[in-house]
């Protein structure tokens, strides 16, 4: 596969790993006193485990798995609201497959489907739009989930629906943004991070400058990275080099896809359709200022919150995370998944308790799937 296979070459990896080891040794990183690098994006977490990078890399480099998995940070109350909408008469509720298994307070979307709600998995918001065109007598709702990478697609779908004058299409917007939770993490007094791997596909939309504050205000290095294993290793090396040289900059490892200033069409669509909520709740992290988006009044006709009177604008439901669940500590890098008292006991992929076990991108689920049994044995 062009632009992918070349970045999976084990020969080049060997050189990168050796160079990483050299720089890690130079800055005195050891197993006991490792350099902590957070890969913000769940896609990176997935790649790290899929290719076994955590076991290949110098023992003085430790990956901390960040909050960049939209499914993992989705509060249970949002899932409950999805189900409330999906169970309304006449509704076809459409969603990415990722959200199907996320537990709400009573059930997941997959369970609601089994009980009779018309819930359909789609690959694209455009497919939801097409369902609306073909089913004019039904109300088609799309569950808008995800970070800046995905936000433009729902914005463009709403603009298209508006141009066509579709009356039966709406988006249940739960889009969230990356920089705000990173700032929240950096403000945490327990924070122990030495650098960041930036989410490349978010940056292909927003560019690299929204992370300037990480380097300028918090003096932490960051390299925006692609998702192939060589991309990740190269970006780790970039971060280590910055540490070794006492620099803190925003570097772009993924220049083949990420333009410095992002994608103007996407940014314009986001700005046209969405506005920031004063604050938004993240599972495991709590309320974070200005970290969520809602649909502007100009597009209220396509806003499922307005149409159904359901959602964040409505009554706040206080739903605490389950007892003993340490997702917050894991997500902030203070605890490893295997050190959580519930890992593998009260919390498994079959019966996830905490958010990070829900999606295959969640740090705990990734630990479980790609090294879990071994990790668990070590923990016991």
């Amino acid at each position, binding site marked *: 596969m062009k632009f992918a296979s070349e970045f999976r070459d084990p020969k080049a990896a060997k050189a990168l790993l050796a160079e990483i080891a050299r720089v890690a040794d130079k800055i005195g990183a050891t197993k006991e006193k490792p350099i902590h690098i957070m890969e913000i994006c769940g896609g990176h977490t997935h790649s790290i485990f899929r290719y076994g990078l955590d076991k290949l890399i110098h023992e003085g480099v430790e990956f901390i798995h960040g909050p960049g998995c939209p499914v993992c940070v989705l509060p249970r109350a949002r899932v409950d609201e999805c189900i409330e909408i999906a169970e309304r008469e006449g509704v076809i509720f459409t969603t990415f497959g990722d959200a*199907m298994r996320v537990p709400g307070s009573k059930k997941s979307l997959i369970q609601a489907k089994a009980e009779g709600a018309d819930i359909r998995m789609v690959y694209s918001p455009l*497919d939801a739009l097409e369902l609306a065109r073909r089913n004019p007598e039904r109300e088609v709702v799309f569950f808008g989930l995800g970070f800046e990478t995905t936000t433009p697609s729902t914005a463009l779908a709403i603009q298209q629906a508006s141009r066509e004058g579709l009356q039966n299409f709406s988006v249940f917007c739960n889009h969230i943004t990356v920089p705000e939770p990173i700032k929240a993490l950096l403000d945490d007094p327990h924070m122990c991070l030495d650098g960041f791997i930036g989410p490349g596909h978010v940056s292909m939309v927003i560019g690299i400058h929204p992370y300037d504050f990480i380097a300028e205000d918090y003096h932490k290095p960051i390299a925006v990275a692609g998702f192939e294993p060589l991309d990740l290793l190269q970006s780790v090396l970039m971060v280590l080099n910055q540490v070794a040289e006492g620099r803190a900059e925003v570097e772009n490892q993924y220049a083949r896809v990420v333009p410095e200033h992002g994608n103007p069409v996407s940014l314009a669509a986001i700005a046209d359709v969405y506005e920031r909520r004063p604050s938004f709740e993240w599972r495991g992290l709590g309320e974070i200022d200005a970290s969520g988006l809602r649909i502007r009044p100009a597009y209220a006709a396509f806003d499922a919150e307005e149409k159904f009177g359901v959602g964040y604008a409505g009554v706040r439901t206080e739903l605490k995370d389950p007892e003993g669940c340490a997702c917050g500590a894991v997500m902030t890098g203070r605890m490893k998944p295997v050190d959580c008292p519930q890992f593998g006991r009260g919390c498994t992929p079959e019966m996830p308790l905490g958010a990070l076990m829900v999606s295959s991108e969640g740090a705990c689920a990734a630990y479980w799937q790609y090294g879990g049994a071994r990790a668990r044995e070590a923990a016991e």
Partner: protein
Amino acid sequence: MALRDERVTLAHGGGGKAMRDLIEEVFTSVFAPPGMEDQARLQAEALAEPGARLAFTTDSYVVTPIEFPGGDIGKIAVCGTVNDLAVGGAAPLWLSAAFIIEEGTEIALLRRIVATMAREAEAAGVRIVTGDTKVVGRGACDGVFVTTAGVGVIPPGIEMAAGLVAPGDVAIVNGVLGDHGATILAARGDLALSSAIESDCAALGHLMVDVLVAAPGAKAARDLTRGGLASALNEIAEAAGCGIEIAEDALPLRAEVVGMCEILGLDPLYLANEGRLVVFVPEDQAEAALSAMRARPEGEGAVIVGRAVEGHKQVRMTTAFGGQRIVDMLVGEQLPRIC
């Protein structure tokens, strides 16, 4: 031709003339079962041999869409049950076929399914000797559901079981993985993906017979249906109490299947196959087993994918990148993902 209807109605399940016409014209005229009693009365010389054992299996088949590139529900219903017998070391002999038909189903569709089944059964060397039809109201089933049961004979001296797999044994698969799963994903149409992939659906009875001749020490085989290679290997590792290590480099995968998996965030190790199996043989018989497979069209792409090992009890894969990861059982169904 007494049957004039274009679609099945509840009358075709009512026990009267309409039902008889449907059964005779669509089913028994094609399957030509031995005798018209309610039961098949059968004799097998193979079974008379001392030490021979009867193998008996059943499976229900539901698939959406009913017809897809490379096959239809009838083909899966014959091949699937033949394969369930074959991987246990049995020579498949007879099948039963029971149909649950939704009111409104096109009779032409039934005829096509039946024709496929007759053709596949003949090719696999089995006879469909008994059957049943039921018609249910609209919405009570999805088109056509088929249940087949299969009977075969395990010759004396053949003993295949997952528990017999031991460290050192070599794992061989008979061809590219995931074609069926990828075909069905694309054929459903709701993801709007198109490709030239066709289902790998095939009966593997003859292939298994050849493998057992070439590699009489073969320990165990599994067909790689739901859950794909990953699930089959996990089952075997658990039963055998040893580890299994596979190499990502060695996995036979079509570029289109890899492409579809990349688009949808799926792992091809878990995609379903309908004409693929994994067989574990002692190392010194691996080459013979490979040659036997490759001599048949349904085994053309046969390769060694890994081996059973000591030291752990998991399925592990050496990634093409040089790392190693655990290949676990799947939790539920693989869902397409965006993240």
